[in-house]
């Protein structure tokens, strides 16, 4: 119901004001702050993608990093080996993320993995993909891939940060529009019904298998889409950074912090969590991993301050309710 709040006009004003500030940001910020905001938007985008499968359809994936990684690797390899422009590569990256999502979704849903078992299965796919990527020479294996810097629009490489900033900002606007459309559509309402009670939805004529699969396909496609951005912004990709379980968890914590199953939740969550990691990394860089400790504290506070708490939220609101034994009993 959080999302419904955004239909009030004062919320529209807030969104418009935030948009105005974001659009004009490059006019009055330095390159460091811009980098921080780019990272915030980037993680907000990823959180919103995850939110389609998890927040709306209730399928909590802890392996979303692999869809993103697939997008990053696809666009990078195509660029390095075949000279394909990242502007095309990003779409192909989305498609490869989607195919991976289709694969994971088909197998897990086909065999009826729900709740904890679905989460564990997605984690397993994440671990598996990382091992494969670390050993696949064709994509650089454990050395990763370096993208030689040649500034040009076609190469999606720019000397300043502003073009990257606007790119990711428009991606965020795009995903917000996609999520709004999903939320208002029959499709989105059916996804929410599946999240609330899968058996009940199925009994009312909903092909839950197909809808869950569609949610995964859409979610993994948009996740893969942003892979190219990461590759060409950072210039270097490696299985340890792209397929790490921590990235999957980060993608998960951001929407949970901001509000699951809501359009702006992931973006808001990213504005709370992402600066912490960027700033602690920037100022206390020599203590690597320190930002994780700060995250830990923040997440503890959220658990305490948000009445339902993260864990209960996950258990109660997201996970498809465990089959009540009573219905199976005689």
């Amino acid at each position: 119901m959080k999302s419904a709040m955004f239909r009030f006009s004062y919320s529209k004003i807030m969104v418009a004001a935030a948009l105005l500030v974001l659009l004009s940001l490059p006019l009055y910020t330095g390159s460091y702050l811009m980098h921080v905001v780019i990272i915030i938007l980037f993680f907000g985008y990823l959180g919103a993608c995850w939110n389609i499968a998890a927040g709306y359809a209730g399928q909590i994936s802890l392996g979303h990093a692999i869809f993103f990684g697939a997008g990053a690797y696809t666009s990078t390899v195509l660029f390095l080996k075949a000279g394909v422009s990242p502007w095309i590569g990003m779409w192909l990256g989305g498609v490869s993320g989607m195919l991976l999502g289709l694969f994971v979704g088909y197998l897990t849903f086909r065999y009826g993995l729900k709740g904890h078992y679905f989460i564990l299965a997605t984690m397993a796919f994440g671990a598996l993909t990382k091992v494969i990527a670390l050993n696949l020479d064709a994509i650089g294996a454990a050395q990763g891939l370096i993208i030689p810097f040649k500034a040009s629009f076609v190469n999606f490489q720019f000397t300043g940060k502003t073009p990257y900033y606007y790119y990711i900002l428009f991606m965020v606007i795009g995903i917000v529009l996609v999520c709004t459309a999903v939320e208002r559509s029959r499709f989105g309402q059916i996804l929410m019904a599946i999240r609330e009670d899968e058996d009940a939805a199925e009994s009312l004529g909903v092909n839950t298998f197909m809808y869950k699969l569609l949610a995964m396909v859409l979610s993994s496609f948009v996740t893969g889409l942003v892979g190219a951005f990461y590759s060409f912004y950072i210039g270097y990709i490696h299985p340890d950074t792209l397929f790490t379980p921590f990235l999957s968890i980060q993608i998960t914590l951001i929407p949970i912090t901001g509000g699951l199953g809501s359009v702006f939740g992931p973006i808001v969550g990213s504005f709370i969590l992402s600066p912490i990691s960027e700033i602690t990394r920037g100022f206390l860089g020599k203590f690597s991993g320190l930002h994780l400790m700060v995250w830990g504290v923040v997440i503890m506070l959220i658990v305490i301050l948000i009445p339902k708490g993260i864990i209960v939220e996950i258990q109660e609101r997201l996970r498809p309710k465990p089959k009540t034994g009573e219905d199976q009993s005689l």
Partner: protein
Amino acid sequence: MMKRADASLLSVRDLTMEFRGLKALSRLDMNVMSGKVNGLIGPNGAGKTTLFNVISGFLKPQEGRILFEDRNLAGLRPHEICRLGIVRTFQIVKVFPELSVLKNVMIGSFNRHKNNKQSQEVSEKVLEMVGLAGKKNRLASSLTLSGRKRLELARALATEPALLLLDETMAGLNPTEGEEMLSVIHEINRSGVTIFMIEHMMNIMMSVCEHIVVLNYGEKIAEGNPGEISKDRRVIEAYLGEEFTVA
């Protein structure tokens, strides 16, 4: 619409449902009569809910056929069966707690209506019928048990079924709420929907149902109108114990 006096809408033939060797339903033959209020009774553990789970596609039977409009339903998935016109409610209510009452019903109406506006109109009509129209914007989780049971009924009805399976819709309601629920069920039946219901209270079943099936240990022990059922020796044995009838 006119229907032949005793045409069956759904017939179960030679149905067996086993759980690891335990026969929950054993070579069951029975009929659900078209246009009527049909009842399913039997002691605890007789296999009543199992039969509903099999008919609605939540369980796949090992043997037998479930014939509905010349089609065998055995092996179909629940959403396909709903599409064909059979919908069920659950013994333990399963509403969508964090969706509004109206949205709950709209999910049901999407079964026949693909467009948001049309499905909203249908849903509002159905909510009116079960007496929840005034609560359509509330969250389903905020309703009382009686409210949630009505909501589940409305949601099932919104799928526009030919056959409605009601699993203890009146259990847990107080007498007034039970009366109201009964009159809603009658109204639904009058609108042309065949009812097949499980309920524990014998007096209600005997007065409401026109056709009754009695299960005991997974086997049918009687089938017929309430008059026949109440005189049946095996039914009396099952409910009151063997000694009572022997004596």
